[in-house]
């Protein structure tokens, strides 16, 4: 049943690919969030925050 | 004719460089924009010329709307770069700009004489010295008429004689009802000038 091997390979490739993509995105998220928290902890604020309390799109 | 800026703010790379700049210039008036390096003089000129979007505020030109409907179209912009092709001769360069911008000014040869370069029209632009290049770029202002001149350090690299010759050209332009906005570190050499000092930056 070599055909089963192809099915398994396809599922494996898809699973690995999606897992890799998800891991990359999650990791990226974590890195950015950490950096942001660290900067905020150092007391740096974005301009829009320092200008008014609310948020502006840019 | 009147060039007006209201509450202009400029951004570069997502960062606010200046804000709240307003001025009004009638025909025949000049504005000298001064300030330290990096203050945003070039940014301001480019915003007026429409080459950069203003973060806030706007620039308007009023007085002769059917002839000059937009600001950009009514401006000559002389930036840090000369906008000439090194491979073409001086005269070819000027002739091109004259044809492209509208043949409403001097002929290339006359314009060259006005900046004191009468004899070198046939040289490739690449062969000119730094000051001669700048003067060629100045000659470009003369080959086609525009009421507003935006000049970014026009006299950098010019010798004394050329600088005063250029002052005379600017005075003439003002006398004919033109408007000038010039960013500069050096005195412009005439009197009818308002000054806009831009902020202290490193």
């Amino acid at each position, binding site marked *: *049943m*070599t*055909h*089963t091997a*192809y*099915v398994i*390979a*396809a*599922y494996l*490739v*898809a699973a690995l*690919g*999606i897992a*890799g*993509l*998800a891991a*990359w*995105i*999650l990791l*990226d*998220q974590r890195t*950015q*969030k950490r*950096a*942001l928290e660290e*900067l905020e902890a*150092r007391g*740096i*604020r*974005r*301009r829009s925050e320092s200008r008014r309390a609310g*948020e*502006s*799109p*840019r | 004719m009147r060039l007006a800026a209201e509450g*202009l703010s400029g951004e570069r*790379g*997502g*960062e*606010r*460089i*200046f*804000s*709240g*700049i*307003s*001025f009004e210039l009638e025909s025949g008036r000049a*504005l000298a924009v001064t*300030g330290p390096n990096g*203050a*945003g003089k070039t940014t301001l000129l480019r915003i007026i010329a429409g080459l950069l979007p203003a973060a806030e505020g706007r620039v308007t030109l009023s007085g002769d709307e059917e002839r000059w409907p937009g600001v950009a179209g009514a401006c000559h912009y002389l930036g840090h770069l000369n906008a000439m092709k090194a491979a073409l001769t001086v005269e070819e360069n000027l002739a091109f700009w004259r044809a492209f911008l509208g043949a409403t000014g001097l002929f290339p040869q006359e314009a060259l004489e006005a900046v004191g370069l009468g004899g070198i029209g046939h040289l490739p632009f690449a062969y000119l010295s730094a000051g001669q290049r700048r003067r060629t770029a100045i000659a470009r202002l003369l080959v086609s008429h525009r009421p507003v001149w935006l000049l970014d350090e026009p006299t950098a690299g010019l010798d004394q004689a050329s600088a005063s010759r250029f002052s005379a050209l600017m005075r003439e332009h003002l006398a004919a009802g033109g408007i000038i906005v010039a960013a500069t570190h050096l005195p412009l050499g005439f009197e009818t000038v*308002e*000054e*806009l*000092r*831009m*902020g*202290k*930056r*490193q």
Partner: protein
Amino acid sequence: MTEIAKLTERLTALANPTRFLALAGSMLPWLTGAAVLLLSAGLILAFAAPEDYQQGITVRIMYIHVPLAWLSMFCYTMMAASALGTLVWRHPLADVSLKAAAPIGAAFTALALATGSIWGKPMWGTWWVWDARLTSVFVLFLMYLGIIALTRALDDPGRSARSAAILTLVGFVNIPIIKFSVDWWNTLHQPASVFRLDGPTIHPSLLWPLLVCALGFTLLFLSLHIMAMRAEIWRRRVAAMRRMSARVAEVRPAKGHVS
């Protein structure tokens, strides 16, 4: 207020990154959960479904291949919509959406290609043929990569937004043309060797699991996309704050005054 103006306003409100972040934060767990649930249900259904009389067990590849292929096209459509948002309404969020979607789309397209290839080996006897559909998917993949390369090459967010949006739109206009021309090309030279996948008219027993899977993959795509958008927003904030902190000591926005 006209309908359009109202719509625009609502969109603008949603375009506020902070509001988006809040919304994303509360929605993500549900979305991800639903995606996982649907996907597992779909796959169980898929393996419970009968084998195809012609293709045998390999038909199971369909349950991942087809949703991935659909999503690769769906993703590009969404990016084109975002591109319009950037160019017409100048939403900051539209650009974030485009930039975040590109790698996901590329990955899905690559997986569609890979699973298709793996399916092709037992079915057609070769990993790859220059068949019309396969070729246009391959070109789509190249365009994804081109967009990624462009967004990565420009570091200034504002500038790269416009560039990527223009490229995406030009590509979008071009994709039907490519599809059409590739069809023409392929039927012209080699009518015999073209693999028409009219296939078995899909039996409901195969169709239902497929639809469930497709929905699951779509939800998965959406949650990945929202996460990537969130990361991108944070990245931009970090970059802006770094720039500010580098200069904050010496720079005060200048106030102009005419003397």
